[in-house]
C-alpha cells in the first residue's frame, strides 16, 4: 500500500492508502473532516470542493495518492479559532444557504475565484461557481454573499498586512 504525506488544514499526516481511495474519502473517513460532503458520482456538483496547493479541486475526482506531498485546505480549515472566515460570515449574513449541502464547496470555490478577481462582478461570480450546484437557493443570495465576502476580505487584508509588518519590525 502506498504511503503518502499530506497536509490538511495545517496538520501533516502520513497515511497508508489503497490506490483507489479518493481524496474526499481520505478527508472524511480517515481524518474525520466531514465538513466536506459528497454529492454525486460524476464530478458535477462541486459539493466536495477543497483547495489543493491553493487551487480549487473536486476532492471526489482526485485520488489520495495524487495528493501525496501536497497541501489541502477544507472548509474546516478556514476559521481562525472561534472567528469565521469573512466568506463564511458573508454566507451566514446574506442567507446564502438553505439545506447547506452545497455550502462548503460553494465557499471554497468562491474563495478560489477571488484569486483572479478580488472584486468580482455578478457575472464573474456566476461563472466562477459554474461547477457548484445548489438545489435550494436559486443562487441569488449566494452571489450576493460572495461579493460581500470579497469586499470584506479586501478590507481586512489591509490592516492585517500592516499588523504583520509591525510584528516583523518588532521582532529583534
Amino acid at each position, binding site marked *: 500500500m*502506498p504511503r503518502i504525506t499530506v497536509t490538511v488544514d495545517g496538520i501533516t499526516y502520513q497515511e497508508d492508502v*489503497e*490506490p*483507489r481511495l*479518493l481524496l474526499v*474519502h481520505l478527508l472524511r473517513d480517515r481524518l474525520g473532516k466531514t465538513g466536506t460532503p459528497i454529492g454525486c*458520482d*460524476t*464530478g*458535477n456538483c*462541486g459539493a466536495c*470542493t477543497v483547495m*489543493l496547493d491553493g*487551487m*480549487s*479541486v*473536486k476532492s*471526489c*475526482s*482526485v*485520488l489520495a*495518492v*495524487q495528493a501525496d506531498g501536497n497541501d489541502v485546505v477544507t472548509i474546516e480549515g478556514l476559521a481562525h479559532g472561534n472567528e469565521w472566515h469573512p466568506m463564511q460570515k458573508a454566507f451566514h449574513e446574506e442567507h446564502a444557504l438553505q439545506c447547506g449541502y452545497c455550502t462548503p464547496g460553494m465557499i471554497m*470555490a468562491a474563495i*478560489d*475565484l477571488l484569486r483572479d478577481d478580488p472584486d468580482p462582478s455578478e457575472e464573474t461570480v456566476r461563472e*466562477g461557481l*459554474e*461547477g*457548484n*450546484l445548489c438545489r435550494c437557493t436559486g443562487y441569488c443570495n449566494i452571489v450576493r454573499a460572495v461579493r460581500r465576502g470579497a469586499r470584506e476580505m479586501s478590507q481586512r487584508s489591509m490592516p492585517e498586512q500592516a499588523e504583520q509588518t509591525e510584528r516583523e519590525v518588532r521582532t529583534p
Partner: protein
Amino acid sequence: MIPAPFDYVRPASLDEACQVLGEAASSGDDVKVLAGGQSLLPLLRLRLAYPSALVDLGRLPELRGVEDRGDHVFIGALTTHDEVLRSGVVRERIPLVALATATVADPAVRHRGTFGGSMAHADPAGDLPAVALALDCVFVVRSGEGEREIPAAEFFVDYLESALEPGEVLIGVKVPALGPGWGFHYEKFHRTAQAWAIVGVAAAVRRSNGTIEEARIGLTNMGSTPVRARAVEAAIRGVSIAAAGSNGAHDPVRDACAGADEGTSPPSDLHAQPDYRRHLARVLTHRAIGVAGR
C-alpha cells in the same frame, strides 16, 4: 461509488513511464494512463472502467508547458486547461484553443484536467478534439521504440478510442498557428448544469475583402468521433460575409451551412435526438462562421 481496486505506478521519468507501459502492453495487462483524472476518475467511480493498474504521469514536469515554435505551438500533454487559458502564447497564436478551453467543464476541473488527457480520452462530446481536427493538429506519441506523429484526422478512431497503441503515451500536440486574416470561434450548446456539449462547432475562417476564402469546421458530438463539416467548407468558399446573419434578407452563409450535418451520425441520448442534433449543427455552424468571419 468506490472504484474497483487497481495497482498504482508513478513513474519518475518519461522513459520509465514508457518502460512500464511497454511491459504492460506485452503482458496484455489492461493499464490506463492517469493524467489529470477528470474524465477517468468519474468512469472508475461509476465502475464503467476496470483497469488493472493506473500509470500516473502527474509528476512528469517535462510533459507540461506551452512553447511557441514559429509555425506551430507545442502544448505538452500534461498542461492543464487552466495553464492553457493563462498562456499568452495560446491566446495570441492559437486563439481557437483558448476559446474552446474556456468552455471545458468548470474552474475546479480545469485546474486538474489536462490538454493531452482530453485528447487521448477521445470523447466525441469533448470540446478539444473538434478543435484539433479543425486545425489539423499533429499528435506526438512516444513508446519504448521511439517517437511517432499522428495527424488529427487519424488520431480519433472511435468512441473513446484513439490511435494510441498499447505501450504508447501522448507527449504533446502541435497546434498549427494560422496566419493573419484568420478569425476563430467555438460555439457550443449545452445544459447549464453540465458543460458537455450537446453539439459544438469549432470554426476557423480566413477572409479577405469581405469574402470567405477558406473555412475549417470541426463538429463536437455529431458522431462517434469529432467530424469535419467538409460540405460547408466547400460551399462557403467565396461567399460574402457581409450578408451573414442579415435579418430576413437572403443569407448565403446560412445556405452554405445547410450541409453542416452531412456525413455525420449524431448520437441519441437523453439530451437530444439525432434530428435535433442535425438541426443544431446547422444553426451553430452558421453562428460560429458569423462570429469567426467578422
